[in-house]
């Protein structure tokens, strides 16, 4: 009972942290701060994954998003902005359409949630024969093998492509 309560508390705490951090990304004009806020979002989401019985996904989230994508973004920021000691700022444009659209979407989601949610009849949480990580591993090697291989090929192509794009010096046509 206490454990569940703690989990629920943690969920709302991390959910709030994620939303607040995301909002801070939205508000902040400082690019670097935004990126570090993103760390918080990712961490919170990873925590939510772990709470939601998806430990492997959560750790992967930390490892890939924070250890990979965020680092990549930091380097991207540093490479595509002149580092002259000043703060790196980005302007905000199109605020009114963005807010209107956000409100519109929120309204859409709100009205959708007001109706009876079809997924609610999904059934109770099922008990797994094996641990989550084992299940994922076995599924990867059996049911999802093609998808896994395709993803691997895609990743390889993306990496080679990205390395080529970033590394090659295209001749200036002018």
């Amino acid at each position, binding site marked *: 009972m206490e454990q569940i309560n703690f989990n629920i508390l943690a969920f709302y705490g991390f959910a709030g942290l994620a939303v607040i951090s*995301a909002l801070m990304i939205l508000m902040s004009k400082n690019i670097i701060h935004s990126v570090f806020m993103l760390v918080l979002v990712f961490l919170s989401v990873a925590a939510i994954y772990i709470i939601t019985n998806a430990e492997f*996904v959560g750790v992967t989230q930390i490892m890939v998003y924070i250890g990979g*994508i965020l680092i990549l973004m930091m380097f991207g920021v540093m490479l595509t902005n002149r580092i002259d000691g000043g703060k790196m700022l980005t302007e905000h444009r*199109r605020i009114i359409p963005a807010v209107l659209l956000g409100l519109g979407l929120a309204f859409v989601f709100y009205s959708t949630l007001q109706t009876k949610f079809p997924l609610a009849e999904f059934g109770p949480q099922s008990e797994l024969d094996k641990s989550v990580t084992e299940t*994922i591993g076995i*599924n990867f090697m059996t049911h999802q093998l093609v998808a896994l291989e395709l993803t691997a090929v895609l990743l390889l192509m*993306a990496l080679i492509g990205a390395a080529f*794009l970033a590394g090659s010096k295209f001749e200036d046509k002018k």
Partner: protein
Amino acid sequence: MIPIEHYIVLSAALLIIGLMIIIIKRNAIMVLVGVELILNAANINLVAFAKNDPLLTGQMMSLFVIVIAVAESAVALAIIYQVYRHQQVSNIDELDELNG
């Protein structure tokens, strides 16, 4: 138990914020940040729905999403870097050379 609606609300909130980031920010990398947020929102839904699935398909899908997100952001950053090196521009709305 945490009701599934709460996950959906969280993911919707992150989705809307991500969309607004995409629209509002001028910097290309910030747009990418918005995209990542949306992907995360999607992942939250996948993971949440997988709670009731003995095969854990949702979790695996979220893993695929994460991997594809890596690929996407790597390529996107490479392109942004190359564009910056060519045109000294890191803001998306300055890239209007093809503007009719």
